[in-house]
């Protein structure tokens, strides 16, 4: 069994190792996105300073706590990136899905490996932004190693939750073969309900409840809240459990949906 697992890890690891190589094939976009991220972060900081000009606290968070959350959210933005809807759509349109299905590997497993690797690669590429933010805006990094452990576990669980959710939505493209509308809609919803723009505690009560019922918050808000101190370390085990429940439910659902949806695959052209 151990040998089998090692073999699988080697195969999926090899497939995932392609991701950083593909990122490194083009360098211009890296510099462009770094500049854009620095500009966006600067705007966020000045915006929140203006918001706090006449108040000391919003939803229980002071300016420094909010800024810290926002800056960390910018640095760790790749935790909330969704990619499968557009990827499946592209592969269906261009016919690449045929070759993807012809690999002798578990289709979902291979995509999961690549999903995690994409996140890690994008996080590594965020290091220059992290340096700029640390030097210019004085972001406060946690010093307690337990906070980092809580963050890493939570980020891993959250990313997996998001993967299964992304997968379920991507399976819809087998039926629609049109992805633009769905992709843009999900991106928009995710922007608000993941906590990438503002800490979720600042949402109106009804939206806060809705955000809590979506998997976006599991992938982004929870790990960033633990890292930034918006949520205390003592809540970590409860939050992990919640994430694990989401994970198992979405994993089962995603497997069932894929089994049905893959029967609908149409490989375009020739």
């Amino acid at each position: 069994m151990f040998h089998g697992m090692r073999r699988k890890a080697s195969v999926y690891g090899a497939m995932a190792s392609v991701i950083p190589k593909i990122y490194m094939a083009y360098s211009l976009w890296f510099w462009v996105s770094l500049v854009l991220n620095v500009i966006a972060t600067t705007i966020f900081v000045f915006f929140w300073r203006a918001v706090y000009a006449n108040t000391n606290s919003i939803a229980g968070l002071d300016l420094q706590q909010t800024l810290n959350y926002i800056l960390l959210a910018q640095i760790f933005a790749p935790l909330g990136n969704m990619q499968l809807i557009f990827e499946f759509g592209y592969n269906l349109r261009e016919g690449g899905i045929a070759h993807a299905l012809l690999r002798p590997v578990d289709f979902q497993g291979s995509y999961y490996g690549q999903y995690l690797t994409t996140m890690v690669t994008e996080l590594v590429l965020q290091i220059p932004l992290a340096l700029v933010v640390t030097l210019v805006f004085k972001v406060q990094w946690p010093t307690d190693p337990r906070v980092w452990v809580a963050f890493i576990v939570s980020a891993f669980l959250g990313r997996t939750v998001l993967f299964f959710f992304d997968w379920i939505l991507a399976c819809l493209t087998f039926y629609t073969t049109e992805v633009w509308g769905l992709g843009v809609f999900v991106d928009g919803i995710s922007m608000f309900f993941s906590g990438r723009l503002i800490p979720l505690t600042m949402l109106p009560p009804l939206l806060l409840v809705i955000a809590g019922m979506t998997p976006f918050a599991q992938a982004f808000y929870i790990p960033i809240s633990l890292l930034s101190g918006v949520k205390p370390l003592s809540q970590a085990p409860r939050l992990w459990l919640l994430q694990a429940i989401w994970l198992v439910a979405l994993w089962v659902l995603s497997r069932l949906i894929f089994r049905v949806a893959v029967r609908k695959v149409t490989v375009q052209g020739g």
Partner: protein
Amino acid sequence: MSIIQTEDLTKIYRLNQKDPGVTGAIKALVRPRHRDLVAVDQISFTVAAGEMVGYIGVNGAGKSTTIKLLTGILVPTNGKVEVLGRDPHRQRVDNARQIGVVFGQRTQLWWDLALIESLNLIAKIYEIESSRYQFLLEQFSTSLGIKELLPIPIRNMSLGQKMRAELAAALIHEPQIVYLDEPTIGLDLIVKERIRDFIKQQNREKGTTVILTTHDLGDIEELCQRVIIIDKGKLIYDGPINTIKDRFGKFRTITFETCEPITQIKLPPGAEIITPDRHSEERKLALRFDRTITTASRVAAEVMNQVEVVDFSITEPDLPSIVKQIYGGALQGD
């Protein structure tokens, strides 16, 4: 022993129907309409281990859909398909280990990676033993001439280079069956020749079963002893290529461009005029001759003795015309 079996294999696509324009788009949104397209219609055949079978038909005949059903990418609407004793869709992963596929119009290689990186990755995915992989890489580098292509990213390759790289990627794990869907499309004669030789070599040395779809009858003649012809999803011929060649391949068309309009001409036995008719003022003369009765040089010499010829060309019958004749019942009674 047959390793591929299909029985009444049928694939029906459900297509959305829209009227043109914005009104049509809105109508389709409110009341969607569909129509069924039968891409593969109750096809039954078997393929034995080591066979090289040409699977031919005009565009839209259902060739590629059949290949996708055999590989397990698509699920049949009706009927049965079995490859190496498995249901290729239900047992997709096990089936995928034993087959190789080249789709001439799309790549299985990683666009931004050097060819060697793609091949190394494929070797990992198929768990090819390291020394065996090195041996095959060396062998393929020579027979496909890809040694100098190994460090080049796929996106920088020409069509011919890409196709040789695709073949290496599809066969490096030594599959029992290889499906080649138009592997020579758009390639020049030299590359075609190299690819055909490589396929023959794999079949000869490893007993690889080859299912080949193509529009190039040259590929079929070079590689296959048997052809399956489909039209509008239906199987219309399954048998030896010699029958097709004897029946349809014996005719050639020779077209002359002449200095003067031709009013009368004497032809050798086995040749006949197609166009123009004898009273035409045209300066072009198209003849059809039977290669088993006469030769191109005899026909050309006879014509050139009688009229001044500016230019001439010889063409062989194309696939659509053969399929058309077969579909019209041309093989009945053979």
